[in-house]
Each structure stands twice: as structure tokens, then as C-alpha cells.
């Protein structure tokens, strides 16, 4: 076990959804029939191709089945190996991005019930995000309402790139329901692919697609801040999952600089955007995206300008680091303690119900 991370709260792990067959028992007659008769399967996200190195570290890859699908392997590799106290499961699968609203909703509901049945009830260390059909906010609200009473669900999960920017009024019902139940909203790397993943069209390579993910996180933060979502929903908390970290300081600086000159365009943004983001937004720590140089890592942490924002995560089974080296070299020890425990506890208020 890794002594450094013992007792940590891992805010981003990915149990794998084996496929539609696994989810059928959690669907109604219509959808069972529809999926079987259409032979529809493999709703894995294009953002995480099953065989790609990023999707699963080699030594974490099960001999059979997709990454993250083996319960006992996940227990030993993701929980025991790090001494994890709690881990938050963020299943990445096609329900949240399907083009059909009702089919997307059926897949999401099935995933949530399967998660409850096959994971949460089998290991008390596990918590989960509610996956919702982001393509249909009214159905997303129904799904949140259906599950919010089970406090092992500690977050609502959305993909980073959706049909519209998250500041648009289309999404207000989701923010409203999140706040109503005290649930933060996790925005995870990945796309619905309604648009090209870059603002200038389709890249040719996976390399480009993955590296450019931070752009869409910047866009979503800009949208949430400039449209005044945190003014409308002051209790809303957003967690950026697998967003990378080190792009943040430059972005905050640029956001603030430009706001000073044109803030009259968005006068409801009545304090510096970095302050708003520091109050409302959290980020998971893998990937961190810095060289293994203690000085650089410490400077980056310092430039973020808040000790409250970072949340420890392994991003299991995605390949971000080797062995159990989930903490960037040189990460300040005091900050690490906060990131492993205090920050997750305040980002996910429902965790407090279990910890006295």
C-alpha cells in the first residue's frame, strides 16, 4: 500500500461498463426488447477507445473484459493499493451522449441502478456520480430526483463538451436540481461530439484530441462565469474531472485581465473571475500536467492561488502515472493533506454523513 495516500479520498475512478447486456436487467421491457432486437451495443465513449493506452494502464488491464470491469481487480488496484478511504465512481458510457434523448436516459438509469447494485452495495468505500442524459435536461432532472435520496450518490456527472455551453439557460434545470440536493456537478473530460472537438475543426490525431481537452474546460468555465450561473445559483459547485491542472493559472490571469477592460458587458460579474472560480470550482489532480520538478510543481500550486481547489484522484484505470505514484513529485505536503481529505469532504458534503 502507498503510505502517502493512505486514508485519501479518490475523487475520480472509472468502473467500466461491460456493455448493454450487463445493463438489460436494469431496463424496462421496451428497452430490453429494443436493444436486443436492434442488436445495439458498444456505447463506449469515442473519447476513450477501449484499446487506447490512456483508457487503461497496462498493468491494470484485466485479462478478460474491458478496463475497470473486474470488481475484485478494482478493489485491489484502485482502493487497497492506495489505502483509499472513499473513491468516487464516474462511469463513462454512452448514455450521457446518445443522440436519442429517451434512449440516453434509459442507458443512464440502467447504469445508475447497476452501479448501486453491483458496486456501491458491495464495497462501503465506493461512492458514485449520478450519470444523466445531458442531452435532455428535463430527463436529467428526473433521474437526479429519482436517485438523490440515496446519499451514496455524491455528485452529478456531465461530459465536458455538450450540445451547448453550460452557461446557457437550457441547463438551468440541472443546476437548480443540483443545488436543491446539495450535489456538486462533475464535468468530466469527454465529448458528445456534436461539434468538432476543437474550435477550428476536426483534428487528425488522438494526440491532438486529448491534449486539446483543456480548451473546452476553459470554454465551459467562461460560459458559467460570464452568463452569471454562479450569481443565479450561488450554492452551485462544479468539479472538473480529468481536466488537467496546470492550464488553470494562465487561464485565470487572462480571464481576469480581459474582464477588467470589458466587464461592463457582463456587469453581474461584479468581482474578479478568478475569485468566483476559486469559490465555486474544484479540480481533480490527475492528470496534473507538470514536469517532475518539485519547484515547478510548488510554483504551479502557488499560482492557482487557493489551497481549496485541488482534489486527490488516481483517474483509475486511465494511465496517468505508474505504480502508486499518484501524487506529483514535489507536491507541497500541507496542500496534499487538504487535497486528499479536507477538500473532498467540503466538495462532497454527503461524504460527511459517513465520517464522524
Amino acid at each position, binding site marked *: 500500500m502507498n503510505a502517502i495516500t493512505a486514508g485519501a479520498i479518490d475523487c475520480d475512478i472509472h468502473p467500466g461498463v461491460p456493455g448493454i447486456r450487463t445493463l438489460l436487467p436494469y431496463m424496462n421491457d421496451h428497452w430490453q426488447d429494443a436493444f436486443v432486437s436492434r442488436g445495439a451495443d458498444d456505447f463506449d465513449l469515442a473519447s476513450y477507445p477501449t484499446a487506447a493506452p490512456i483508457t487503461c494502464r497496462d498493468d491494470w488491464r484485466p485479462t478478460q473484459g474491458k478496463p475497470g470491469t473486474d470488481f475484485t481487480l478494482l478493489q485491489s488496484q484502485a482502493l487497497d493499493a492506495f489505502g483509499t478511504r472513499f473513491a468516487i465512481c464516474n462511469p463513462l458510457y454512452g448514455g450521457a451522449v446518445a443522440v436519442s434523448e429517451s434512449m440516453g436516459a434509459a442507458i443512464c438509469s440502467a447504469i445508475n441502478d447497476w452501479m448501486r447494485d453491483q458496486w456501491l452495495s458491495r464495497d462501503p468505500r465506493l461512492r458514485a456520480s449520478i450519470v444523466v442524459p445531458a442531452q435532455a435536461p428535463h430527463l436529467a432532472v428526473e433521474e437526479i430526483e429519482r436517485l438523490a435520496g440515496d446519499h451514496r450518490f455524491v455528485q452529478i456527472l456531465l461530459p465536458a463538451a455538450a450540445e451547448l455551453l453550460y452557461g446557457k439557460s437550457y441547463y438551468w434545470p440541472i443546476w437548480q436540481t443540483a443545488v436543491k440536493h446539495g450535489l456538486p456537478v462533475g464535468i468530466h473530460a469527454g465529448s458528445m461530439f456534436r461539434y468538432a472537438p476543437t474550435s477550428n475543426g476536426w483534428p487528425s490525431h488522438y494526440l491532438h484530441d486529448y491534449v486539446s481537452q483543456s480548451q473546452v474546460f476553459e470554454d465551459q468555465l467562461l460560459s458559467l462565469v460570464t452568463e*452569471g450561473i454562479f*450569481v*443565479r445559483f450561488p450554492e452551485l459547485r462544479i468539479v472538473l474531472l480529468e481536466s488537467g491542472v496546470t492550464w488553470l493559472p494562465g487561464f485565470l490571469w487572462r480571464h481576469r485581465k480581459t474582464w477588467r477592460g470589458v*466587464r461592463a458587458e457582463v*456587469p*453581474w460579474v*461584479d468581482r474578479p473571475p478568478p475569485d468566483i472560480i476559486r469559490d465555486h470550482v474544484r479540480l481533480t489532480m490527475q492528470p496534473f500536467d507538470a514536469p517532475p520538478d518539485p519547484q515547478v510543481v510548488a510554483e504551479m500550486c502557488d499560482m492557482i492561488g487557493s489551497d481549496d481547489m485541488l482534489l486527490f484522484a488516481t483517474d483509475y484505470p486511465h494511465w496517468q502515472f505508474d505504480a502508486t505514484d499518484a501524487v506529483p513529485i514535489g507536491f507541497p505536503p500541507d496542500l496534499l493533506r487538504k487535497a486528499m481529505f479536507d477538500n473532498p469532504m467540503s466538495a462532497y458534503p454527503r461524504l460527511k454523513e459517513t465520517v464522524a
Partner: protein
Amino acid sequence: MGKHVVAAVSELPPGSRRLVTVRGRPIAVFNLEGEFYALINRCPHQGAGLCEGDVTGLITADGPGRYRISRKGEIIRCPWHGWEFDIRTGQSWCEPSRIRTRKYPVEVANGASLVKGPYLAETVAVSVEQDYVVVEV
């Protein structure tokens, strides 16, 4: 510090501004509804001629998308990067306590008192019948 006559009141009607040079310093004098204010014509950001920017009101909001404009004519917007300053105080809107432009005391004096001194009327010819804007620099 000295008191400098920079204009006759009649030359600076409400809503107008005038750029003057006093002891080598570029200074902008504003008339806001009969009250006079003087700011150095240099933006604390990167040194633009601040007082040559647009004079506007203060734009605020009662909530997202609900704009409101108040204090019309009391805000100067820097012509270079748009930072807003309160003409009355020289304070920036964004960081009023940290970012401000230099402000000078202004008073109105009548010609009769000016002729006695200790005022310095370098460029303005003073006559006893008129009132004058006096900046202390």
C-alpha cells in the same frame, strides 16, 4: 504645492472636460454638474491618456442579463484597454483600493480674490468679474 488657475468657469460648462498642463503635468479637469474634478491624464495601467477616453455611466446589473446604468457622465473609460475610473475619486472600478489614478484638489475662486494671490495664473488671463477653476498641484 501651488494653486493654479486653469480656466474660467464659463469655458468649462457642465459635462465638459479640458486637458491642461500644470507644472509640466498633464491634467484633465472635468465639470460634473457644476462640480469640478481634476485627474492626472495618465492611466495607472500602461500610461494611456486616460482622460481622452469615453465618459460614460456606471453599468451594473440587478442579476444576469438585467443591465442598469447609473451615475451618467461620472465614469471615464481608458481609451487603451477600457479600464473604468470614477472621475470623482480617481479609483478604478475593478480594484478601487489598489488601482487608482492621481486626483488633485480643485476649487472655484472669483477673479477678485485671484488678483490678490497667492494664485498662479500662468496661461489664463484673470479678470475680476469672472469665476475661475483653480487646481492645486
